[in-house]
């Protein structure tokens, strides 16, 4: 049976990740509540992406568990995915589709919210590009399109891997505002970034994976 929506908490317990014979991190534990953001820091290769993928449920931890509202996310499956949205290193958009077509597909894969696709594109500053082939957008515009996916489904937890890649100063500002608005509205965030992430209205937990290992 589905978890009651009041029980929204992401918890990691004794999480261990081994990659290519190296233990990236072990016995990692944290708790994330609505309104909070988890910022992962660390050198390249310290396991940030792997941890995010474990939180998504794409990657299995080598030990430990991730729970949502008390239940293991492996057992929840789609009931967990419906609450989450993930933007990874790769944009997750098709270059041979238009932004509108890309968002329509992304929306159909999750639980649609009330924002129209055009509104979502506007919020990431892609107004006017609705019907341009994504191939013809710049890298920064493609990245913003990928992030627009976050706005069209009813999701609580946003899991973002280097969301600000390819973005200019203005783009970063736009996205930071969206992230901040999300958490202050009760959403949750798990993000890695080389930049300092400016979220004025959010409680931030920081975990530095480089400091944890060794």
């Amino acid at each position: 049976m589905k978890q009651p929506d009041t029980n929204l908490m992401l918890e990691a317990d004794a999480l261990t990740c081994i990659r290519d014979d190296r233990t990236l991190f072990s016995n990692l534990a944290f708790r994330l509540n609505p309104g909070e953001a988890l910022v992962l820091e660390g050198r390249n290769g310290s396991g940030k992406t792997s941890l995010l993928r474990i939180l998504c449920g794409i990657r299995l931890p080598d030990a430990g568990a991730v729970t949502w509202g008390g239940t293991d996310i492996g057992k929840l499956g789609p009931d967990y995915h419906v609450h989450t949205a993930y933007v990874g290193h790769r944009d997750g958009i098709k270059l041979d589709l238009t932004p509108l077509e890309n968002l329509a597909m992304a929306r159909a894969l999750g639980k649609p919210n009330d924002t129209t696709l055009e509104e979502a594109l506007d919020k990431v500053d892609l107004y006017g590009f609705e019907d341009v082939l994504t191939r013809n957008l710049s890298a920064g515009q493609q990245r913003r399109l990928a992030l627009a996916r976050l706005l069209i489904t009813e999701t609580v937890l946003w899991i973002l891997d280097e969301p600000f890649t390819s973005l200019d100063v203005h783009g970063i500002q736009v996205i930071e505002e969206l992230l901040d608005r999300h958490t202050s509205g009760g959403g949750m965030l798990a993000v890695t970034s080389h930049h300092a992430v400016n979220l004025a209205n959010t409680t931030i937990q920081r975990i530095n994976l480089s400091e944890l290992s060794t």
Partner: protein
Amino acid sequence: MNSDSLLRAFTLLLKRDLTLAMRHRAEMINPLLFFVLVTSLFPLGIGADPKLLQAVGPGVIWVAALLAALLSLEGIFRSDFEDGTLEQFLLSSHPVSVLVLAKVLAHWLITGLPLLVISPLLGVLLGLPGDAILILLVTLALGTPVLSLIGAVGVALTVGLRKGGMILSLLVLPLYVPLLIFAASAVDTAAAGLPVTAHLSLISALLVLALSLSPLATAAALRISLS
């Protein structure tokens, strides 16, 4: 998620893949050309004696169809894997097996159906009688979906690998053997004027089995390949 949104996701994904194929229309012809080319090589290789060609015709056309299907298989997941859309399917609130089914259906429409359409021409090239050509069409209609379904499992297992293509043939071709045997034999039998109900039932059984099991296996394989 209710079945309404599931149906919507299925249809939209199907439409998406067909749209993408249409935007690269030129590539759609490659498996087709391969099919015709390979079949045409046989008379050149073994001689043009009409009786001989008629005898080997069914098997040759079906082997060529197998190879053409194999060639086009990588396309099911390769592009989605590279741009990150494949992992989005795994993170969907819908069952992955249904999404896989949509993709396999699209793949069959794009690569399998054309083989069907051109097969009568190949039947004529190899001197098959009319009855046999009709049965050839039926076996291809029932069999090419099986090729896509079984092939999808193989592609899902190898999508993350660098030299995935080489291993794919090794994984998938042994699994194609029963279909090849039943289908080629059906066309052969039809050419002799005999009834082929048994053959067609067997092929249909394979299709039903593939339809029920392959999406699940493919979904499981995708989760493993993308972890």
